[in-house]
Protein backbone atom coordinates (compact mmCIF):
# COMPACT_ATOMS: atom_id res chain seq x y z
CA UNK A 1 0.00 0.00 0.00
CA UNK A 2 1.18 3.47 -0.82
CA UNK A 3 2.25 5.92 1.89
CA UNK A 4 -0.38 7.57 4.07
CA UNK A 5 -2.96 9.48 2.09
CA UNK A 6 -6.10 10.87 3.72
CA UNK A 7 -9.50 10.90 2.06
CA UNK A 8 -12.66 12.54 3.34
CA UNK A 9 -16.24 12.61 2.14
CA UNK A 10 -18.43 15.47 3.35
CA UNK A 11 -21.64 16.70 1.65
CA UNK A 12 -21.09 19.96 -0.28
CA UNK A 13 -24.04 21.60 1.44
CA UNK A 14 -26.56 21.02 4.23
CA UNK A 15 -29.60 22.77 5.72
CA UNK A 16 -29.08 24.61 9.03
CA UNK A 17 -29.45 22.12 11.87
CA UNK A 18 -29.06 19.09 9.60
CA UNK A 19 -27.15 16.07 10.85
CA UNK A 20 -24.68 14.99 8.19
CA UNK A 21 -22.58 11.85 7.84
CA UNK A 22 -18.85 12.25 7.43
CA UNK A 23 -16.68 9.43 6.12
CA UNK A 24 -12.91 9.37 6.46
CA UNK A 25 -10.28 6.94 5.30
CA UNK A 26 -6.51 7.05 5.43
CA UNK A 27 -4.24 4.58 3.70
CA UNK A 28 -1.75 3.42 6.29
CA UNK A 29 -0.16 0.03 7.07
CA UNK A 30 -1.03 0.25 10.83
CA UNK A 31 1.91 -1.95 11.82
CA UNK A 32 0.90 -3.24 15.25
CA UNK A 33 4.35 -3.86 16.73
CA UNK A 34 3.41 -7.48 17.45
CA UNK A 35 4.70 -8.95 14.21
CA UNK A 36 8.15 -10.26 13.38
CA UNK A 37 10.06 -10.10 10.11
CA UNK A 38 11.62 -13.06 8.28
CA UNK A 39 14.69 -13.00 10.55
CA UNK A 40 12.52 -13.07 13.67
CA UNK A 41 13.15 -9.46 14.66
CA UNK A 42 10.15 -7.49 15.90
CA UNK A 43 8.77 -5.01 13.37
CA UNK A 44 8.48 -1.69 15.20
CA UNK A 45 5.00 -0.34 15.83
CA UNK A 46 3.83 2.36 13.47
CA UNK A 47 0.19 3.30 13.58
CA UNK A 48 -2.07 6.31 13.37
CA UNK A 49 -2.65 6.90 17.08
CA UNK A 50 -5.02 9.87 17.07
CA UNK A 51 -7.72 11.32 14.86
CA UNK A 52 -9.53 14.62 15.31
CA UNK A 53 -12.17 16.54 13.41
CA UNK A 54 -12.86 20.23 14.00
CA UNK A 55 -15.51 22.49 12.54
CA UNK A 56 -14.59 26.20 12.43
CA UNK A 57 -12.08 25.57 15.20
CA UNK A 58 -14.54 23.71 17.45
CA UNK A 59 -13.95 20.00 18.16
CA UNK A 60 -16.54 17.72 16.53
CA UNK A 61 -15.07 14.28 17.01
CA UNK A 62 -11.80 12.84 18.20
CA UNK A 63 -10.48 9.45 19.13
CA UNK A 64 -7.33 7.62 20.13
CA UNK A 65 -6.54 4.67 17.92
CA UNK A 66 -4.89 1.54 19.26
CA UNK A 67 -2.71 -1.13 17.57
CA UNK A 68 -5.52 -3.60 16.96
CA UNK A 69 -7.12 -1.35 14.36
CA UNK A 70 -6.47 -2.80 10.91
CA UNK A 71 -4.71 -1.19 7.96
CA UNK A 72 -6.33 1.79 6.22
CA UNK A 73 -8.51 2.91 9.15
CA UNK A 74 -12.00 4.01 8.14
CA UNK A 75 -13.97 6.24 10.50
CA UNK A 76 -17.53 7.37 9.97
CA UNK A 77 -19.39 9.77 12.26
CA UNK A 78 -22.15 12.36 12.22
CA UNK A 79 -22.12 16.09 12.88
CA UNK A 80 -24.83 18.71 13.23
CA UNK A 81 -24.25 21.68 10.96
CA UNK A 82 -25.69 25.06 11.95
CA UNK A 83 -23.51 27.34 9.82
CA UNK A 84 -21.32 27.27 6.75
CA UNK A 85 -17.68 26.58 7.42
CA UNK A 86 -14.72 24.28 7.19
CA UNK A 87 -14.13 20.84 8.61
CA UNK A 88 -10.52 20.16 9.45
CA UNK A 89 -9.35 16.56 9.84
CA UNK A 90 -6.09 15.52 11.47
CA UNK A 91 -4.40 12.14 11.73
CA UNK A 92 -1.32 11.73 13.96
CA UNK A 93 1.25 9.06 13.11
CA UNK A 94 3.53 7.31 15.64
CA UNK A 95 6.55 8.73 13.78
CA UNK A 96 5.31 12.26 14.50
CA UNK A 97 3.92 12.95 11.03
CA UNK A 98 0.61 14.76 10.95
CA UNK A 99 -1.69 14.33 7.96
CA UNK A 100 -4.50 16.83 7.43
CA UNK A 101 -7.37 17.43 5.10
CA UNK A 102 -10.04 20.14 4.92
CA UNK A 103 -13.55 20.24 3.47
CA UNK A 104 -15.87 23.21 3.14
CA UNK A 105 -19.59 22.98 3.57
CA UNK A 106 -22.19 25.57 2.52
CA UNK A 107 -25.69 26.15 3.83
CA UNK A 108 -28.59 25.30 1.55
Amino acid sequence: MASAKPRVKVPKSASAGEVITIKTLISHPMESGQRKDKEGNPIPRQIINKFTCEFNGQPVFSCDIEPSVSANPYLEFTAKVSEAGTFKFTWVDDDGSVYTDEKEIALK
Partner: protein
Amino acid sequence: MKKYLITAAAIAMAGAFSAAAYAGGPVDENLVIDGEIEMTTRTASPEGHPLDELISGWHYRTKETRALEADTFENPAMLFVEDGEQIWNTVEGTEGKSCATCHGDASESMAGVGAQYPKWDADAERPINIELQINKCREERMGAEPYAFDKGGQKPLTAYIKHQSLGEPVGIDLSQGDMQSWWEKGEELYYTRTGQLNLSCATCHEDHNGEYIRADHLSQGQVNGFPTYRLKQAALVSIHNRFRGCIRDTRAEYPAAFSDELMALEVYVTWRGTGLSVETPAVRQ
Protein backbone atom coordinates in the same frame (compact mmCIF):
# COMPACT_ATOMS: atom_id res chain seq x y z
CA MET B 1 -57.11 -8.66 -30.41
CA LYS B 2 -54.15 -10.79 -31.31
CA LYS B 3 -51.79 -8.08 -30.12
CA TYR B 4 -53.74 -7.84 -26.87
CA LEU B 5 -53.37 -11.56 -26.34
CA ILE B 6 -49.63 -11.41 -26.90
CA THR B 7 -49.34 -8.59 -24.36
CA ALA B 8 -51.40 -10.55 -21.87
CA ALA B 9 -49.20 -13.57 -22.44
CA ALA B 10 -46.09 -11.46 -21.91
CA ILE B 11 -47.47 -10.14 -18.62
CA ALA B 12 -48.36 -13.65 -17.52
CA MET B 13 -44.84 -14.80 -18.37
CA ALA B 14 -43.29 -11.88 -16.47
CA GLY B 15 -45.46 -12.83 -13.53
CA ALA B 16 -44.30 -16.38 -13.73
CA PHE B 17 -40.66 -15.26 -13.72
CA SER B 18 -41.04 -12.97 -10.73
CA ALA B 19 -42.89 -15.72 -8.86
CA ALA B 20 -39.90 -17.92 -9.59
CA ALA B 21 -37.56 -15.47 -7.81
CA TYR B 22 -36.20 -17.44 -4.89
CA ALA B 23 -33.56 -16.93 -2.27
CA GLY B 24 -30.26 -16.74 -4.07
CA GLY B 25 -31.69 -15.29 -7.27
CA PRO B 26 -30.74 -11.87 -8.60
CA VAL B 27 -32.23 -8.87 -6.78
CA ASP B 28 -34.28 -6.35 -8.69
CA GLU B 29 -32.28 -3.17 -8.05
CA ASN B 30 -30.27 -0.66 -10.03
CA LEU B 31 -26.59 -0.02 -9.51
CA VAL B 32 -25.76 3.68 -9.57
CA ILE B 33 -22.18 4.49 -8.64
CA ASP B 34 -21.79 7.56 -6.39
CA GLY B 35 -25.34 8.55 -7.32
CA GLU B 36 -24.04 9.57 -10.76
CA ILE B 37 -23.01 6.72 -13.07
CA GLU B 38 -25.97 4.52 -13.98
CA MET B 39 -24.69 1.04 -14.65
CA THR B 40 -26.13 -1.53 -17.01
CA THR B 41 -26.21 -4.61 -14.84
CA ARG B 42 -29.00 -6.40 -16.71
CA THR B 43 -29.26 -6.45 -20.45
CA ALA B 44 -30.63 -8.46 -23.34
CA SER B 45 -28.16 -11.01 -24.60
CA PRO B 46 -26.41 -10.75 -27.98
CA GLU B 47 -27.44 -12.98 -30.88
CA GLY B 48 -26.59 -16.62 -30.43
CA HIS B 49 -26.23 -16.32 -26.65
CA PRO B 50 -27.54 -19.27 -24.63
CA LEU B 51 -29.02 -17.05 -21.87
CA ASP B 52 -32.07 -14.80 -22.31
CA GLU B 53 -30.81 -12.04 -20.08
CA LEU B 54 -27.32 -11.12 -18.94
CA ILE B 55 -27.10 -10.30 -15.24
CA SER B 56 -24.08 -8.91 -13.45
CA GLY B 57 -22.83 -10.75 -10.38
CA TRP B 58 -23.65 -7.60 -8.40
CA HIS B 59 -27.31 -8.67 -8.32
CA TYR B 60 -26.46 -11.91 -6.54
CA ARG B 61 -24.62 -10.37 -3.61
CA THR B 62 -25.87 -9.19 -0.23
CA LYS B 63 -27.22 -5.72 0.42
CA GLU B 64 -24.04 -4.73 2.27
CA THR B 65 -21.73 -5.93 -0.50
CA ARG B 66 -23.85 -4.19 -3.14
CA ALA B 67 -23.64 -0.94 -1.16
CA LEU B 68 -19.83 -1.16 -1.05
CA GLU B 69 -19.64 -1.17 -4.81
CA ALA B 70 -22.14 1.66 -5.21
CA ASP B 71 -19.91 4.12 -3.35
CA THR B 72 -16.37 4.56 -4.65
CA PHE B 73 -15.39 6.01 -1.27
CA GLU B 74 -16.37 2.83 0.51
CA ASN B 75 -15.21 0.45 -2.21
CA PRO B 76 -12.06 -1.07 -0.66
CA ALA B 77 -10.60 -1.75 -4.10
CA MET B 78 -10.27 1.95 -4.84
CA LEU B 79 -7.11 1.97 -2.73
CA PHE B 80 -5.58 -0.45 -5.23
CA VAL B 81 -6.86 1.62 -8.13
CA GLU B 82 -5.03 4.59 -6.60
CA ASP B 83 -1.91 2.44 -6.39
CA GLY B 84 -2.43 1.73 -10.07
CA GLU B 85 -2.55 5.45 -10.79
CA GLN B 86 0.78 5.87 -9.06
CA ILE B 87 2.30 3.03 -11.10
CA TRP B 88 0.89 4.63 -14.27
CA ASN B 89 2.98 7.73 -13.52
CA THR B 90 6.13 5.93 -12.33
CA VAL B 91 9.11 5.76 -14.67
CA GLU B 92 10.58 2.25 -14.95
CA GLY B 93 12.99 0.45 -17.25
CA THR B 94 15.91 1.38 -19.44
CA GLU B 95 13.99 3.78 -21.69
CA GLY B 96 13.13 6.16 -18.83
CA LYS B 97 9.43 6.00 -19.54
CA SER B 98 6.24 5.58 -17.53
CA CYS B 99 2.84 4.63 -18.93
CA ALA B 100 2.00 8.34 -18.82
CA THR B 101 5.00 9.27 -20.99
CA CYS B 102 3.24 7.84 -24.05
CA HIS B 103 -0.41 7.62 -22.98
CA GLY B 104 -0.71 10.86 -20.98
CA ASP B 105 -3.83 11.26 -18.89
CA ALA B 106 -5.39 7.83 -18.46
CA SER B 107 -8.85 9.30 -17.90
CA GLU B 108 -8.71 10.41 -21.56
CA SER B 109 -6.39 7.94 -23.29
CA MET B 110 -7.79 4.84 -21.56
CA ALA B 111 -11.48 5.80 -21.55
CA GLY B 112 -13.40 2.87 -22.98
CA VAL B 113 -10.25 0.86 -23.74
CA GLY B 114 -10.73 -1.74 -21.00
CA ALA B 115 -14.19 -2.58 -22.34
CA GLN B 116 -12.70 -3.83 -25.63
CA TYR B 117 -10.20 -6.37 -24.32
CA PRO B 118 -9.19 -9.14 -25.06
CA LYS B 119 -7.99 -7.87 -28.43
CA TRP B 120 -6.19 -9.56 -31.28
CA ASP B 121 -2.42 -9.14 -31.13
CA ALA B 122 -1.08 -9.48 -34.68
CA ASP B 123 2.54 -9.88 -33.51
CA ALA B 124 1.83 -12.73 -31.13
CA GLU B 125 -0.96 -14.11 -33.34
CA ARG B 126 -3.21 -14.62 -30.35
CA PRO B 127 -5.62 -12.55 -28.27
CA ILE B 128 -4.16 -10.53 -25.42
CA ASN B 129 -5.81 -9.07 -22.35
CA ILE B 130 -4.92 -5.88 -20.47
CA GLU B 131 -2.35 -7.69 -18.34
CA LEU B 132 -0.46 -8.92 -21.41
CA GLN B 133 -0.82 -5.55 -23.13
CA ILE B 134 0.84 -3.95 -20.09
CA ASN B 135 3.66 -6.50 -20.26
CA LYS B 136 4.05 -5.87 -23.99
CA CYS B 137 4.42 -2.13 -23.34
CA ARG B 138 6.85 -2.76 -20.50
CA GLU B 139 9.10 -4.97 -22.63
CA GLU B 140 8.87 -3.22 -25.99
CA ARG B 141 8.52 0.45 -25.02
CA MET B 142 9.78 0.87 -21.47
CA GLY B 143 12.62 -1.65 -21.41
CA ALA B 144 11.25 -2.99 -18.15
CA GLU B 145 10.72 -6.52 -16.91
CA PRO B 146 7.26 -7.89 -17.64
CA TYR B 147 5.14 -8.55 -14.55
CA ALA B 148 4.82 -12.19 -13.51
CA PHE B 149 1.22 -13.37 -13.14
CA ASP B 150 -0.56 -11.44 -10.35
CA LYS B 151 2.79 -9.98 -9.21
CA GLY B 152 4.18 -6.46 -8.93
CA GLY B 153 1.90 -3.79 -10.30
CA GLN B 154 -0.08 -6.12 -12.54
CA LYS B 155 -3.38 -6.19 -10.65
CA PRO B 156 -3.55 -2.54 -9.51
CA LEU B 157 -2.46 -1.23 -12.93
CA THR B 158 -4.96 -3.46 -14.75
CA ALA B 159 -7.68 -2.31 -12.36
CA TYR B 160 -6.72 1.34 -12.88
CA ILE B 161 -6.85 1.00 -16.66
CA LYS B 162 -10.17 -0.88 -16.67
CA HIS B 163 -11.62 1.56 -14.14
CA GLN B 164 -11.29 4.30 -16.79
CA SER B 165 -14.07 2.43 -18.65
CA LEU B 166 -16.42 2.35 -15.65
CA GLY B 167 -19.97 2.22 -16.98
CA GLU B 168 -18.93 1.54 -20.60
CA PRO B 169 -20.56 -1.51 -22.19
CA VAL B 170 -18.36 -4.58 -22.65
CA GLY B 171 -17.88 -5.19 -26.36
CA ILE B 172 -15.07 -7.18 -27.92
CA ASP B 173 -14.38 -7.29 -31.64
CA LEU B 174 -14.49 -10.89 -32.83
CA SER B 175 -13.76 -9.89 -36.43
CA GLN B 176 -10.12 -9.07 -35.64
CA GLY B 177 -7.55 -11.62 -36.76
CA ASP B 178 -8.44 -15.12 -35.73
CA MET B 179 -10.58 -14.09 -32.74
CA GLN B 180 -13.51 -16.16 -33.94
CA SER B 181 -11.65 -19.45 -33.69
CA TRP B 182 -10.42 -18.52 -30.21
CA TRP B 183 -14.02 -17.75 -29.28
CA GLU B 184 -14.99 -21.21 -30.53
CA LYS B 185 -12.20 -22.81 -28.55
CA GLY B 186 -13.34 -20.89 -25.48
CA GLU B 187 -16.92 -22.02 -26.00
CA GLU B 188 -15.79 -25.62 -26.20
CA LEU B 189 -13.86 -25.26 -22.94
CA TYR B 190 -16.85 -23.56 -21.29
CA TYR B 191 -19.00 -26.63 -21.93
CA THR B 192 -16.30 -29.25 -21.23
CA ARG B 193 -16.71 -31.04 -17.93
CA THR B 194 -13.50 -31.29 -15.92
CA GLY B 195 -12.21 -32.69 -12.67
CA GLN B 196 -13.34 -35.35 -10.26
CA LEU B 197 -16.59 -33.46 -9.75
CA ASN B 198 -17.18 -33.55 -13.49
CA LEU B 199 -18.39 -29.94 -13.77
CA SER B 200 -18.19 -27.53 -16.67
CA CYS B 201 -18.46 -23.74 -16.37
CA ALA B 202 -21.96 -24.08 -17.79
CA THR B 203 -23.08 -26.57 -15.13
CA CYS B 204 -22.96 -23.89 -12.47
CA HIS B 205 -23.14 -20.58 -14.29
CA GLU B 206 -25.59 -21.41 -17.06
CA ASP B 207 -27.79 -24.20 -15.72
CA HIS B 208 -27.86 -23.28 -12.04
CA ASN B 209 -27.16 -19.57 -11.66
CA GLY B 210 -29.40 -18.03 -9.03
CA GLU B 211 -29.30 -21.21 -6.98
CA TYR B 212 -27.18 -22.05 -4.00
CA ILE B 213 -23.83 -23.85 -4.10
CA ARG B 214 -23.27 -24.77 -0.49
CA ALA B 215 -23.98 -21.49 1.34
CA ASP B 216 -23.22 -19.23 -1.59
CA HIS B 217 -25.16 -17.93 -4.57
CA LEU B 218 -24.17 -18.93 -8.07
CA SER B 219 -24.05 -16.02 -10.49
CA GLN B 220 -23.77 -16.12 -14.26
CA GLY B 221 -20.00 -15.92 -13.87
CA GLN B 222 -19.71 -12.60 -15.69
CA VAL B 223 -16.26 -11.01 -15.85
CA ASN B 224 -17.27 -7.36 -16.36
CA GLY B 225 -16.03 -6.34 -12.91
CA PHE B 226 -12.51 -7.81 -12.98
CA PRO B 227 -10.06 -7.35 -11.41
CA THR B 228 -12.61 -7.78 -8.63
CA TYR B 229 -12.23 -7.08 -4.93
CA ARG B 230 -13.18 -10.20 -2.99
CA LEU B 231 -13.99 -9.62 0.65
CA LYS B 232 -12.86 -13.17 1.37
CA GLN B 233 -9.31 -12.40 0.17
CA ALA B 234 -9.39 -8.68 1.07
CA ALA B 235 -7.54 -8.09 -2.19
CA LEU B 236 -7.99 -7.74 -5.92
CA VAL B 237 -8.52 -10.99 -7.79
CA SER B 238 -7.61 -11.26 -11.47
CA ILE B 239 -9.73 -13.04 -14.10
CA HIS B 240 -7.22 -15.83 -14.64
CA ASN B 241 -6.88 -16.39 -10.91
CA ARG B 242 -10.66 -16.71 -10.71
CA PHE B 243 -10.75 -19.12 -13.67
CA ARG B 244 -8.08 -21.24 -12.03
CA GLY B 245 -9.94 -21.16 -8.71
CA CYS B 246 -13.11 -22.43 -10.37
CA ILE B 247 -11.29 -25.17 -12.27
CA ARG B 248 -9.45 -26.19 -9.09
CA ASP B 249 -12.80 -26.43 -7.32
CA THR B 250 -13.95 -29.00 -9.86
CA ARG B 251 -10.88 -30.95 -8.62
CA ALA B 252 -9.10 -30.71 -11.92
CA GLU B 253 -5.58 -29.60 -12.73
CA TYR B 254 -5.74 -26.04 -13.96
CA PRO B 255 -3.95 -24.48 -16.92
CA ALA B 256 -1.28 -21.79 -16.45
CA ALA B 257 -2.35 -18.16 -16.38
CA PHE B 258 -2.34 -16.55 -19.85
CA SER B 259 -2.12 -20.01 -21.45
CA ASP B 260 -3.97 -20.59 -24.72
CA GLU B 261 -6.77 -22.33 -22.82
CA LEU B 262 -7.43 -19.52 -20.37
CA MET B 263 -7.06 -16.79 -23.01
CA ALA B 264 -9.64 -18.57 -25.17
CA LEU B 265 -11.90 -18.85 -22.13
CA GLU B 266 -11.44 -15.14 -21.37
CA VAL B 267 -12.41 -14.23 -24.95
CA TYR B 268 -15.54 -16.40 -24.75
CA VAL B 269 -16.61 -15.44 -21.22
CA THR B 270 -16.05 -11.74 -21.93
CA TRP B 271 -18.32 -12.09 -24.96
CA ARG B 272 -20.94 -13.70 -22.72
CA GLY B 273 -21.13 -10.36 -20.88
CA THR B 274 -21.52 -8.20 -24.01
CA GLY B 275 -23.44 -5.04 -23.16
CA LEU B 276 -22.96 -5.16 -19.40
CA SER B 277 -21.19 -2.13 -17.94
CA VAL B 278 -17.55 -2.44 -16.94
CA GLU B 279 -17.71 -2.44 -13.12
CA THR B 280 -13.98 -2.59 -12.36
CA PRO B 281 -13.28 -2.74 -9.50
CA ALA B 282 -16.38 -4.71 -8.55
CA VAL B 283 -16.89 -5.92 -4.97
CA ARG B 284 -17.89 -9.53 -4.41
CA GLN B 285 -18.13 -11.88 -1.48
